[in-house]
């Protein structure tokens, strides 16, 4: 049997961070001994490596080069030839091509991460198809310091460097080779200070999680650049601004005002406050994502983990469902030496399980979780409710109490953790609706005009303020609407010396709107950026801070 079923005309996937991938099966051949050879194109390179691999739903050792060859998707080496000799970790033609019929041309699949598989007949396979699924660390990307000096090229889940990679691939260096150095001119397009600062912000602890935001996302089907970039920015609460030909990345975070706008700068009579952004904003947000964490199958209480002579025994709080031969994952235990993936060797009682940790010292620990890797990437959909807004828009009639009216919004957070998703959903609601407190007040949107050449008391110029910056409206502009506002949009109308048709240069008579900046501002809500989980701790109830499959209450921040 020989099957060639490469799917042509479909997109070459682009993936960052951790992904579970099957790939585009381009070759499937059954040999005389009934073993099968198959090739899977995974995505645009260069990927880092597999983490786990399953064949016919059975976990396998992906490092076994007699069966599996992973090629990361580097640029093909010119002059390297097409001799089918590679056993993986490079971009030469794979050795398994030699097992295929002669009419199949060996190729390097330049720049495509791919997996070549040669596996024996599997009578126990659940279906007649060969099914290969893997968990992978996807694209490796460039990292830089604030001065624009490249500091590395490696796999990372830091959103700053993944976003920069997408910009480089699609806009700044679309024909660049893998990890090709940027030219000086290319570097001037990037605000490295902002990317470096953003990377630090994402990498900092967000409370209960190791990092505030990580980016694990794949684009397997065609999407335009805007969609892809919006998805990535959504997953790290960030925005991009281009100013003067330089692209900046900013996390939306608690920040200080950078301009004080007073009556000296303001053009009287132009202030227009409204609550239009809050009026139709979503108050019932469902965040779908594939959970990166290992769901909890069983919990281990205090003192429930012991290791003697390299054999570990876990005692769960209730009966567990595992069988001998299952591979369990221990993502959390007081003593970190108990963490990892292990194959169960014995089930002493219905609450106990044993596995080997040869070479590890004797120890006793507890407060842990037992899960299985297969259940990673399970779909989750926690929701966030902004109750005060729901009540405010839920009028039913005279004499009738208001009932919450849900205005729904479904957002996709890719591969993520429940903690990050909750943080992102709360931001999404708070930004336009304000904190969900009593009494509730939505942030105002202001539109006003000011002189483009305005300079504030601190020497800051209005024209230098970027979208996203905070502007303080002084009480001299409005007693009622003074405060901090985020700059959403700017409409600039520079004066022009020839605007009167005389071509007389500067100082001539300008139209009325010359030299004016019209600003669209949104009331600043610092609560939108709270790391809600800072105070929670691990305990016997592991669902407090991990992705508990069975415990996902409606989230409402304190």
């Amino acid at each position, binding site marked *: 049997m*020989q099957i060639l*079923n*490469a799917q*042509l*005309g479909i*997109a*070459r996937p*682009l993936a960052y961070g951790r992904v*579970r991938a*099957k790939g585009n*099966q*381009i070759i499937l051949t059954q040999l005389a001994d009934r073993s099968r050879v198959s090739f899977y*194109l995974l995505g645009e390179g260069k990927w880092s490596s597999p983490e786990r691999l*399953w064949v*016919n*739903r*059975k*976990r396998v050792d992906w490092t076994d080069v007699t069966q599996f060859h992973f090629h990361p998707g580097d*640029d093909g080496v*010119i002059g390297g*030839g*097409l001799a089918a000799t590679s056993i993986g970790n490079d971009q030469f033609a794979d050795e398994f091509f030699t097992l295929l019929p002669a009419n199949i041309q060996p*190729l390097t699949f330049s720049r495509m991460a791919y997996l070549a598989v040669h596996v024996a007949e599997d009578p*126990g396979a659940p279906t007649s198809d060969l*099914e290969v*699924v893997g968990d992978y660390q996807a694209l490796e990307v460039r990292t830089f310091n604030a001065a624009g000096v490249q500091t590395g090229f490696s796999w990372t889940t830091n959103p700053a460097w993944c976003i920069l990679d997408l*910009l480089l691939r699609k806009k700044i260096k679309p024909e660049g080779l893998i990890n090709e150095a940027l030219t000086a001119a290319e570097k001037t*397009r990037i605000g490295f200070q902002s990317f470096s600062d953003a990377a630090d912000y994402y990498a900092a602890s967000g409370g209960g999680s190791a990092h505030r935001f990580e980016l694990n996302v794949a*684009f397997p089907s*065609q*999407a*335009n*650049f805007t969609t892809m970039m919006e998805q990535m920015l959504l997953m790290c609460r960030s*925005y991009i601004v281009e*100013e*003067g*030909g330089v692209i900046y990345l900013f996390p939306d975070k608690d920040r200080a005002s950078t301009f004080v706008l007073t009556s*000296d700068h303001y053009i009287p009579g132009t202030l227009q406050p409204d609550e239009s952004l809050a009026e139709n904003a979503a108050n019932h947000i469902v965040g779908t994502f*594939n959970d990166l964490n290992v769901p909890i*199958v069983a919990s281990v209480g205090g003192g429930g983990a012991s290791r003697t002579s390299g054999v570990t025994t876990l005692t769960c709080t209730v009966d567990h469902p595992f069988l001998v*031969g*299952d591979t369990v994952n221990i993502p959390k235990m007081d003593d970190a030496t108990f963490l990892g993936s292990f194959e169960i060797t014995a089930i002493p009682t219905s609450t106990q399980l044993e596995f080997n940790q040869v070479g590890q010292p004797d120890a006793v620990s507890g407060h842990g979780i037992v899960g*299985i890797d*297969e259940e990673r*990437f399970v779909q989750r959909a926690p929701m966030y409710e902004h109750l005060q807004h729901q009540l405010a828009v839920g009028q039913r009639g005279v004499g009738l109490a208001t009932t919450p009216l849900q205005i729904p919004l479904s957002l996709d957070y*890719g591969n993520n953790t429940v903690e990050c998703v909750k943080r992102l959903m709360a931001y999404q609601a708070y930004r336009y609706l304000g904190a969900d407190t009593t009494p509730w007040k939505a942030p105002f949107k202001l539109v006003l005009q000011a002189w483009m050449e*305005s300079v504030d008391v601190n*020497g800051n110029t209005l*024209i230098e303020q970027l*979208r996203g910056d905070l502007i303080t409206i002084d009480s001299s502009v409005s007693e009622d609407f003074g405060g901090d506002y985020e700059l*959403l949009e700017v409409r*600039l*109308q*520079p004066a*022009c*010396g*020839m*605007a009167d048709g005389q071509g007389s240069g*500067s100082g001539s008579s300008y139209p009325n709107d010359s*030299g004016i900046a019209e600003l669209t501002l949104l009331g600043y809500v610092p609560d939108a950026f709270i790391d809600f989980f800072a105070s929670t701790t691990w305990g016997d109830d592991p669902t407090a801070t991990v992705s508990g499959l069975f415990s996902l209450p409606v989230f409402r921040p304190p």
Partner: protein
Amino acid sequence: MKRRSGFAPINLVDVQCANGDLFYWSDFNGVFPTRLGAGPTAQYSCWVEKVGPFSLTRSLKVDAGQIVVQNITGAVNRDVSQVIIRREFIGALVVYRWWKIEIEAALWEFHGSVKSPRLSEASLILPLKQLLDTSQQDGLRLYSEQCSLRYKGPMCASVSGLATCDLTFGNCQARGVQERFDGLPFATPGAAQIPSSPFPSGNPSPGPGDLTDPQARAIRGRAVR
């Protein structure tokens, strides 16, 4: 301090067409430092009639602006008409500067490209969009039986003396870069073509992230609940 004092800033416009032609326009005759071209300075023709408005947002909505150039000067033919008739301005690179003469520096810059110029008897309008226009481009390359790389481009890197390539594997081999060939030339005669969807329903997961079908999650050997 209300505003900067002194003369109002002037407007400098540098334009570079796809063919490399450069134009320097202003609303104030003079020699100023350039942003495009070899420079360091150039004579700026006093042709700019109006600039803006520039609309700038925090979102990925494309920032946009507009430059209006007079189309009046000229002896027999109008200068600007001649300029735009003889070369292509669509996609031309534009750097606009709001320039303060006293300090010889730009107070603000906009870098963009021309969308589609509009010419009238009196003026030329150049609508601008920011360089980071994300709306126009598909994000992902596609699988094809032919190579998707530009012949002799950096990713192809062929140094063959042959002028063209038809992007087939045979041509690629003849040009010495078969290791970089990125097509899938597997549609061999007699081979069974089995239609299947490698990524079920296009985007396989409820969202980006999971590149497998839902059934694949039910891995054999997992624990029974």
